[in-house]
């Protein structure tokens, strides 16, 4: 429904809506950055291409100074919405937002819109990754035959939500299943991630998951060893056509569309979005090219419903902290 409105509005004004995004890694990291970039292009397609929605992006802005310069530039160039797609950009966003009060900004991975500090042109958005983590956990537990599951994280403390949710999901189904978590100490060390996968497999794991762009290496290994992989953030099925069973996908499309709508309605910020199964921000995709036990699919769907209905809450799990 929303898209039609947008179309009308666009038609009404003619000039395309201009979005700029600044992201830490590459548009093709098959993780955090790519998930947003793909969503943007999806929205663009839905709205009717270039002349409805103009997208400008700066990738590889891992250096915050550069990102902050980019954000400021985009604002100065009069973009309607400037998306700072990284936690570390917080400072910069608010600093620029106070200088460009009639430009709208969005800050990734946070619920802080600065409203309490009298800033009202900043949106905030984040993913409740532990929901998908939980479901993937359930799936993992059901797939695992020798009840050993391996998790490959980037840096301890990062991807915490996803991993905590995952562990939760596993333990709900198989309380005594063993979840081995190992961190590579980096976001992009594909080599170590790959070896971590090997190690997990040799340590008996028959289901693997992991996060950050480094996992490409691990998926390759899972693929070679025919061990199930559960993806997250962005679509990883293409990497492991035979082993990626499920994939939690961040679908920012609605968030973006909604922000656009609000902005055009003159509301420049203040909302904090959270991707959930509930609002279709999180999606669990099954790999169609391999056939998956219906019981598993069923359990996954059930888990999702439970989460939607609030029957289970995968969020609060401070105690079982590694």
């Amino acid at each position: 429904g929303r898209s039609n409105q947008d179309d009308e509005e666009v038609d009404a004004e003619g000039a395309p809506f201009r979005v700029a995004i600044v992201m830490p890694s590459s548009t093709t990291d098959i993780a955090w950055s790519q998930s947003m970039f793909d969503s943007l292009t999806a929205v663009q397609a839905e709205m009717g291409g270039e002349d409805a929605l103009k997208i400008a992006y700066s990738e590889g802005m891992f250096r915050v100074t550069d990102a902050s310069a980019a954000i400021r530039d985009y604002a100065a160039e009069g973009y309607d919405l400037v998306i700072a797609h990284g936690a570390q950009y917080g400072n910069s966003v608010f600093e620029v937002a106070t200088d460009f009060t009639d430009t709208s900004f969005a800050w990734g991975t946070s619920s802080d819109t600065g409203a309490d500090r009298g800033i009202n042109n900043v949106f905030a958005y984040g993913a409740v990754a532990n929901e998908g983590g939980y479901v993937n956990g359930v799936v993992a537990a059901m797939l695992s035959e020798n009840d050993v599951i391996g998790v490959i994280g980037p840096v301890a403390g990062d991807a915490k939500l996803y991993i905590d949710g995952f562990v939760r999901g596993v333990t709900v189904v198989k309380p005594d299943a063993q979840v081995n978590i190992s961190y590579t100490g980096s976001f992009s060390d594909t080599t170590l991630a790959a070896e971590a996968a090997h190690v997990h497999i040799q340590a008996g794991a028959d289901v693997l998951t992991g996060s950050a762009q480094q996992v490409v290496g691990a998926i390759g290994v899972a693929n070679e060893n025919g061990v199930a992989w559960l993806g997250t953030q962005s679509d990883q099925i293409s990497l492991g056509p035979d082993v990626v069973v499920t994939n939690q996908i961040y679908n920012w499309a609605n968030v973006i569309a909604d922000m656009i709508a609000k902005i055009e309605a003159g509301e420049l910020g203040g909302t904090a979005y959270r991707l959930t199964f509930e609002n279709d921000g999180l999606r669990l995709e099954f790999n169609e090219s391999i056939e998956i036990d219906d019981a598993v699919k069923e359990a996954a769907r059930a888990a999702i419903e439970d989460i939607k209905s609030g029957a289970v809450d995968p969020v609060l799990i401070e105690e079982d902290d590694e």
Partner: protein
Amino acid sequence: MIDELFTISTLIGILHSCVRLATPYLFASLGETFGQRSGVLNLGVDGIMLMGAFFGFYVVFEGHNLWVGVLAAIAIGVMMGLLKAFVSVTMQSLQGISGIGLYLFGLGLSSLLFKTLIGSVEGVSGFRQLPIPLLADIPGIGHILFNHNALVYLAYLMVPASWFVINRTTLGLKIRAVGHNPEAADTLGVSVNGVRYTTLMIGGALAAVAGASLSIGLQNVFQENMTNGLGFIAVALVYFGSWRTVGVLGGALLFSLVNALQLWVQALDIPVPSEVAVMMPYIMTIVVLAFTARQIQRPAALARSYERGE
């Protein structure tokens, strides 16, 4: 828990990981050894690795044979070596810095080509596990040493091969001489720059294969900056091995062993904070060298560009 670490199967697992992990370091470090023995420091290894990783991957991605991929990597590696040679031998530039330039160039270009030619992270089926008949069945050792993919074996074959070239061939003699006293070599009609061009091309080729060993050997995927600075470690390992092929082997194995160990420690969730675990390989390398460092025979002319008296 902790006792699991000392079960036979785990130890075998650790060593198996170690042997495999060492692969890229071996290729790259041996390559760098050639260059440094002839007196050229190349800090650009990581850039060359990335180029090798990409071209190896791209060729395979385009549906060609894996070995064609390796050849492609070698080809690009030789070219990168030539570039480095031109800059630091012919143009006699500061070698430490030209290496950084080469690194940036390789890093950027590989990513650029990746974006334009492929566009998204894709998988290929690379070199598969190739258990060596009979040998692989030896209990323990068999799995540790003889149950890897072809490139892993190749990496280890490169150790004696490099040793042989450096110590048993006329080229090797020239390399050692040029690296230690270019003036002397020159007065005997050895082309100092010629030798250095050669070693840099060899080094480039090996570095590129190191990259390929990741993209079509161990991970079967290409991603921007997938080496993640591995090449710099490789250079460091040459110092660790004090310019001897065997020493380099030792360095690569030590570094990989500690890495494998820390991965296992985590995987078996033995109560060691992962923050500490991930630092261990780097700390250990320094510590071990600090305790073993002796009057090493470094190529006296290392990183010094050569020009005749006038």
